[in-house]
């Protein structure tokens, strides 16, 4: 159950994707998402999907991970597809009583599904191949200009780092507490809604107690090491853009151009 959530999980590796600068990865993923929405026909979208496939191949991660990150959002995908198939109006393709399915509806559904899958797979690839620390580090650098208008960039990114760092710990903790209460015969599966909510109490209370204890300990440990916020703080790991980062940027730019060209001059079939 809890352990099946892969979103936000890092899978160590040494591929070129793993070694890209996190700032570049963040910018490219935003560009990739924009590109998915710029594509207005099946052919241009397939270029986008192809780019995703190439990125995954380069990352050398098992293909199973794609399925694993899509699985939790399958209901959303199906819901979107059904909604589009039945409610987009246009030239009817098939009619039965009050149900009518249009060609445009089917096409919209297919395009939406590909878009959502690429979007989730793409952003999952970012977290699969980037450590949470590198990710927030990259974010902090990218948001640095916002400091001029008094946005507490460093504090925000420190909060995010800590939150990301503690998600696995808390999931672990939750599982341990659940196991301990189950060992005392706690029944979490049966009963109505109220009984199920009540069954959560023996889990939530120890979880909160331990979360507060951890927060306390962490604050103390940070103070002991003289943490005093972002001012004047230097970094151990300096981020530096290199050839492969520009290569990746070039690749995405070419893909972007290809999609725009396909939009403008490609075949007129399967278009919205």
């Amino acid at each position, binding site marked *: 159950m809890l*352990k099946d959530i*892969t979103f936000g999980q890092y*899978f*160590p590796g040494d591929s070129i994707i793993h070694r890209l600068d996190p700032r570049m990865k963040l910018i490219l993923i935003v560009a990739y998402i924009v590109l998915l929405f710029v594509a207005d026909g099946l052919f241009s979208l397939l270029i986008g999907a192809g780019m995703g496939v190439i990125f995954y191949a380069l990352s050398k991660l*098992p293909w*199973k*991970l794609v399925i694993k990150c899509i699985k939790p959002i399958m209901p959303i995908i199906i819901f979107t597809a059904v909604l589009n198939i039945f409610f987009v109006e246009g030239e009817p393709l098939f009619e039965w009583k009050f149900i009518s399915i249009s060609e445009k509806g089917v096409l919209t559904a297919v395009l939406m599904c590909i878009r959502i899958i690429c979007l989730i797979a793409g952003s999952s690839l970012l977290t699969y191949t980037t450590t949470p620390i590198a990710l927030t580090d990259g974010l902090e650098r990218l948001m640095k200009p916002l400091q001029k208008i008094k946005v507490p960039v460093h504090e925000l990114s420190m909060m995010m780092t800590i939150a990301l760092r503690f998600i696995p710990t808390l999931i672990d*903790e939750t599982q*341990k*507490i659940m*196991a*301990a*209460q*189950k*060992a*005392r*015969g*706690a*029944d979490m599966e049966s009963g109505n809604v109220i009984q199920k909510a009540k069954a959560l*109490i*023996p889990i939530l*209370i*120890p979880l909160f*107690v*331990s979360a507060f204890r951890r927060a306390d300990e962490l604050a103390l440990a940070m103070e002991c090491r003289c943490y005093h916020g972002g001012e004047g703080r230097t970094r151990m790991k300096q981020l530096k853009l290199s050839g492969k980062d520009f290569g990746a940027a070039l690749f995405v730019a070419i893909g972007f151009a290809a999609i725009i060209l396909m939009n403008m001059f490609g075949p007129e079939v399967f278009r919205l």
Partner: protein
Amino acid sequence: MAEIIIKTENLSYVYSAGTPYEHRAIDNINIEIEKGSFVGLIGHTGSGKSTLIQHLNGLIKPTSGKVFVGGENLWANPKDIRKFRFKVGLVFQYPEHQLFEETVRKDIAFGPKNMGLSDEEIEERVLEAAKHTGLTADYLEKSPFELSGGEKRRVAIAGVLAMKPEVLILDEPTAGLDPKGREFILSEIKAYHENTGATVILVSHSMEDVARFASHVLIMNHSKAVMYGETREIFKRVDELCEMGLEVPQISRVFAKLREKGCEVPESVLTVAEAKDAVLKLLEKGGKDNA
């Protein structure tokens, strides 16, 4: 031969199967534990001890293999799994982190309540478990969160004892306690074992503790059960244990060295009292030889 209370058949478990984090935590475990025995379970951190014991009350479903408790296959009918949780009581490592009720009394009563017992029966069991763990009446109305670490742990152990399990499993119950707290908990476990005749499985890092209390020892190494047998027999194999990097009780080590040097001492010496007898005997004999 005595009745077998717990039996495993080719038991294996793999964590995070199908991901890069895949890990075979226990591998083809076959053990039979006799009713009424006191088993010490020893192994390095990460050798799969905690994973193994969670199979014995059905908290973890085996990847392959079977578990039998009192002759019944645990997973024959998954709906009935809860009944085994009451039969096989499991005290987790750092059990004080599971406390949640307003008072110690209510927290100890959580297990018996889940068993669906009557109020009188629950009350009786709470008092009995509290007595077993040395918690006096004035503790019962306190909040578990205002107790010291050692006291919290006693409350948590009482919470499992109150279910009166036929098999009591404790995962490193003395970790992080001071010597006095350790001694107290170990003697309570021993007393529970003797008074109720329950089978006890004690996961421990301390060879000394296991040598003192356990009738049997199970040694785990790299996800496998490498040795199982009577305490004396196991601690005779000093060399093999040392090869695995496991500590052997000091006394056993001293006597192994003595034998190496040609002294005629018995092979299985576990406690200081036995050592004293053996040394005295040796001296007496030596005295006679010289005379």
